[in-house]
């Protein structure tokens, strides 16, 4: 069954341009059917994994170290669940939003690339082979470059080009890292590597390979000093794509990092043998603070959200590098929650652009009186971003703080508090302008059209829902931890 998770998006990406020759409107429907079908299969197989344990599929029937395998276990089932959900929402959103942002004659090819991107990220999440990971990283990246380049402004081309250069350096670093590890072990299968590596932990080759693998993934993940490509890429791409990339792109790299750190290498290697943990806790803390500070300085709404993403990525890597159960659990829940809330915020920002053509925060004056419902969704998602109790963002931060206390890194607590206050400030700035700013002109109500409003509503309501009923993310992430800690 799990083989269809990648094959259906791939098939639909072939189908979209062909059917697009007949009628342009088919692109959307094929993509929608694909998203629904994939999501259904993922729910079904996640449930199966949850009940019966990890599922494996051998391609061509060749057993693992020799052939390539798919593995679906507790960890990546969480990730593909959220990815498929965000993709479904983005596809629903895209129909109306793309009408204004993409030339209609290119629409079917655009959907084709979107499906290829979906194929790529699902492929990264589900593969059990380390070289296959590289191939799918390239599929996802190539389609992401193209999607970003389709933005309305000419800056989008430059953003796409910069992402291409940095992304290719990252991917090639991953390739070098795979080469070094392959040279030391002679194997490419993740499960097999986990067995072969421990006796080689003191080899310089393995350490260098590890360094380059993590460095490459950090470039893709946009951790603070390596983040330069992210703000422009998110700002200048079409609204649907901003939301899709913010919800899935960096999350999948975070997943790949967790997989490499804890499932290919072991926690003993990360913490005791090399000083990985210390360096990255430090970097993540800087990322958390700097992301929020830079977000404060922005004039453009989407750019502000993009910089806030950099801060939130800091939380994820912090949880990963603290390397204990609660922190890692917090990190996985944060991947889940941050996808929901950032997607909601980008949907709403795209909605402002669709309805009023607004991009800068300064121009939002009085918009809350024109679109009260939309603005209330913005408040919900924004508060969740800040981490107010009873929202989803609170849960993940809580787990990370517990993890920090367990590892006795007390400095984490003031930093998280500081960053929460900073994010409250930048969310508040938007709210203040939109509620109390003097608007010029008419103030009759005009909400977003339903196709734009509905996905934004779903994702922001879920932010509250998962803040109160925490069972689903907590249980799923607990299962993921069990996989990583091996019991």
């Amino acid at each position, binding site marked *: 069954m799990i083989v269809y998770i990648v094959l259906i998006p791939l098939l639909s990406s072939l189908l979209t341009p062909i059917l697009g020759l007949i009628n342009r409107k088919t692109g959307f429907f094929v993509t929608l059917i694909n998203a629904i079908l994939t999501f259904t299969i993922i729910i079904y197989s996640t449930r199966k994994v949850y009940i019966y344990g990890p599922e494996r599929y051998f391609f061509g029937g060749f057993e693992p170290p020799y052939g390539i395998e798919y593995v679906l276990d507790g960890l990546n089932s969480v990730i593909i669940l959220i990815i498929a959900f965000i993709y479904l929402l983005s596809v629903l959103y895209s129909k109306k939003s793309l009408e204004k942002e993409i030339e209609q004659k290119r629409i079917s090819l655009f959907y084709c690339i979107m499906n290829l991107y979906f194929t790529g990220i699902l492929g990264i999440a589900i593969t059990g082979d380390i*070289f296959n990971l590289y*191939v799918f990283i390239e599929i996802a990246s*190539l389609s992401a*470059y193209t999607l970003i380049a389709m933005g309305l402004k000419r800056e989008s081309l430059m953003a796409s*080009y910069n992402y*291409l*250069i940095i992304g*290719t*350096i990252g991917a090639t670093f991953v*390739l070098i890292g795979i080469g070094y590890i392959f040279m030391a072990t002679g194997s490419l299968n993740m499960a097999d590597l986990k067995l072969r590596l421990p006796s080689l932990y003191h080899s310089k080759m393995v350490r260098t390979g590890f360094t380059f693998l993590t460095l490459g993934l950090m470039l893709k993940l946009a951790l603070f000093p390596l983040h330069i490509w992210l703000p422009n890429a998110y700002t200048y791409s079409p609204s649907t794509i901003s939301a899709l990339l913010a919800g899935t792109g960096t999350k999948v790299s975070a997943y790949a990092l967790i997989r490499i750190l804890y499932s290919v290498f072991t926690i003993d290697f990360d913490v005791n043998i090399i000083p990985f943990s210390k360096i990255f806790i430090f970097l993540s803390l800087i990322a958390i603070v700097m992301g929020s500070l830079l977000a404060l300085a922005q004039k453009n709404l989407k750019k502000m959200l993009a910089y806030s993403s950099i801060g939130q990525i800091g939380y994820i890597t912090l949880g990963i590098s603290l390397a204990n159960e609660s922190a890692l659990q917090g990190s996985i829940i944060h991947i889940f929650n941050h996808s929901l809330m950032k997607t909601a915020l980008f949907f709403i920002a795209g909605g402002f652009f669709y309805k009023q053509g607004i991009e800068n925060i300064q121009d939002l004056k009085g918009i809350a009186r024109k679109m009260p419902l939309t603005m209330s969704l913005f408040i919900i998602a924004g508060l969740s971003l800040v981490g107010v109790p009873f929202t989803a963002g609170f849960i993940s931060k809580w787990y990370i703080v517990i993890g920090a206390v367990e590892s006795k890194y007390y400095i984490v607590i003031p930093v998280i508090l500081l960053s929460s206050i900073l994010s409250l400030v930048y969310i508040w700035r938007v709210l203040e302008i939109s509620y109390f700013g003097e608007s010029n002109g008419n103030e009759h109500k005009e909400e977003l059209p339903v196709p734009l409003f509905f996905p934004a509503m779903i994702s922001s309501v879920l932010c509250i829902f998962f803040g109160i009923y925490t069972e689903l993310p907590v249980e799923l992430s607990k299962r993921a931890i069990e996989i990583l800690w091996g019991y």
Partner: protein
Amino acid sequence: MFDFIVSKYNYWISIVLMMIGLYGMIAKKNLVKKIIGMNIFQVSVFLFYISMGKIKGGTAPIYWEKAVIYDNPIPHVLILTAIVVSISTTAVALAIIILIYKKFGTIEEDKILELMEKENRR
């Protein structure tokens, strides 16, 4: 010492080549030049992979009655895949560069940044 150098020089030269390419990618301001650097960088990584599959006295991994030792075929397979990935990246990058030239009228990074700043100030 001499043995050490002789036994490693192949890897070292491929690393030197990688670094030449990486320098071209980072330091050069011309957009096409960056892509040329990228090509050199990736091809040198491929050279590194192929070097690790070589065995002294081995022959090409195609069945042959007289063969005693075959070279390791796995790196060859991986690199066949990677070459195609590399050429695809080049193609997409050059397509973006053509569009950039159409919209900005130049392919020098500094000039494009200047143009973008002017636009933002307005």
